[in-house]
């Protein structure tokens, strides 16, 4: 399990994440919520050691991350990055690169790697466009390819940085279902989301960030009861109980006053 203890991190002397203690337990989907600039993505990067911790520490199964090399980290935690240049390679090749942390010299992928990549593609439904260039796929198809890559990395923890951005609603729901499935298999999933209702519906735990600090950590219900979402986002957040279950609706604060 990945655990952050009093972690502060940032870029070039500017502290973005301040004194956050948090863990990502196996079998649960932890969603990071918070306004723009509240430090969600920075927290993910610091958890992966992509930016160094200013203060505090990151532990992987009790081992401080600075004692691990990059490959060891990459075998323990994978990231679906938010910023990705157009990949001008075939989908199956991209998925195969999920095996990169396991390569030893001369860096040739083995038959086992190919099998793992193939299975990952079958699972996310990316097999249909295995031979196509990733840059020519639609948003949903691309996401399934990158998810397969994440799966091929075979890590205990998966981090997803705004994975639903640019996806239509069906693909968003598909993605959330898929993440939920991963957690069901005993993995830890941590994701940055901007869609509050989606987060409330699918998260096991929500970590609410405000100005770099952890403002709340708990179940969606507890978060709703706390009223923190309304104060942090400056919106009105309403719960409805309908035939299909509990629904949440966001609306601007002004309208309701």
């Amino acid at each position, binding site marked *: 399990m990945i655990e952050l203890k009093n972690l502060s991190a940032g870029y070039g002397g500017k502290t973005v994440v301040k004194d956050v203690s948090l863990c990502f337990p196996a079998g649960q989907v932890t969603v990071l919520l918070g306004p723009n600039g509240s430090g969600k993505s920075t927290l993910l990067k610091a958890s*992966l050691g992509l930016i160094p911790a200013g203060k505090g520490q990151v532990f992987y199964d009790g081992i401080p991350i600075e004692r691990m090399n990059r490959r060891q980290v990459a*075998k323990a935690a994978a990231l679906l*990055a938010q910023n*990705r240049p157009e990949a001008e*390679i*075939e989908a199956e090749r991209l998925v195969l*690169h*999920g095996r*990169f942390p396991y390569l030893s010299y001369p860096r040739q992928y083995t038959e086992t790697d190919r099998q793992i990549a193939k299975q990952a593609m079958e699972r996310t439904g990316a097999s249909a466009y295995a031979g196509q260039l990733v840059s020519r796929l639609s948003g949903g198809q691309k996401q399934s390819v990158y998810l397969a890559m994440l799966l091929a990395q075979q890590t205990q923890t998966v981090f997803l*940085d705004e994975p639903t951005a640019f996806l239509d609603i069906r693909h968003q729901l598909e993605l959330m279902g898929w993440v939920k499935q991963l957690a069901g298999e005993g993995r830890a999933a941590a994701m940055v989301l901007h869609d509050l209702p989606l987060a409330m519906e699918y998260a096991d735990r929500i970590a609410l960030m405000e100005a770099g600090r952890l403002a709340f950590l708990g179940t969606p219900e507890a978060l709703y009861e706390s009223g923190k979402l309304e104060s942090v986002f400056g919106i009105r957040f309403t719960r409805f109980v309908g035939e299909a279950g509990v629904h949440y609706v966001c609306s601007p604060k002004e309208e309701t006053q």
Partner: protein
Amino acid sequence: MKTLQTSSTPRREAAVVLAMGLLMLLAAVLSLCLGAVRLTPAQLVQAIIQGRSNTLAGRIFWFVRLPRTLAALLTGAALAVSGVVLQTVLHNPLAAPNIIGVNAGAGFAVAVAAVCFPGASGSTPWLSFLGAMGAVGLVLLLSRLTGASKITLVLGGVMISSLFNAAIDTLLTFQPDALTGYADFRVGSFADITMARVTGAALPIGLTLAAAVLMASPLEILSLGDETAASLGLNVRAVRTVLLLLAAVLAGAAVSLAGIIGFVGLIVPHFVRQLTGEKLLPLLLSSALGGGAFVAACDTLARTAFAPYELPVGVVLSFLGVPVFLWQLLRSRRHRG
């Protein structure tokens, strides 16, 4: 040539590499045979078998054509591979060796030499190489001081290049006589190449080409973006610096052989990419072979088209390269449209 629409299978990639290899072989043979005195293939074979014999064909082959052909092949391969590496590392399709200060640094060193030691043109290769390395070193330092991002690298390259170019202009303003020595370097030519110069550059070019090919896999991971590459366990900053240095040595060594040769590093990778996609191993190999073929062919044309006059090879590269490049751009646009 078919624009890459769907997948490029390993067999297709191997075919592209093979085709480029044959193209290079053809360009090399033409370059060895054609010139002021035309050698037949039979004479060529005879010259090779007889070694450094005192026949006319033997002397032409060993002392004129072979060094020149090898220089063209090495220069083309080095510039094209340097271009592939830079474009991938900087995620910028317009990146070429000049963007990290290679040409300006080398030019500055040559201009200084032309002013200070007007007779000593023999030291040009070394000086230009050192100048190129110095400029790239400054660019890397500047980028490291400002956060080592891709954009600071490109901006640093533009700044340092401008500074060196201004220094060159200043030198030539005060010492117009030095212009002659510098002008030869600026247009790029293989006219006074010797075997000694070729062997001097062959080792660094050969080693760095091999190193670039060996780094195809990390380079391909780097092309997926910094965050993804780092999350896959790649030391992004270290790998990027090593690759930039490789690209700089390749381009610096090429400039030391031929002077400043325009846009081989831009056009050849762009062309080859249409055939191989971004899969780095075939892209690097095909670019090396294709780059060698292109420069050797252009040099052959440069010295035969208006014989006995010889055009600077850089001029032929531009006149031949630009239309081909534009044709290909229009063609790929039509395919997309």
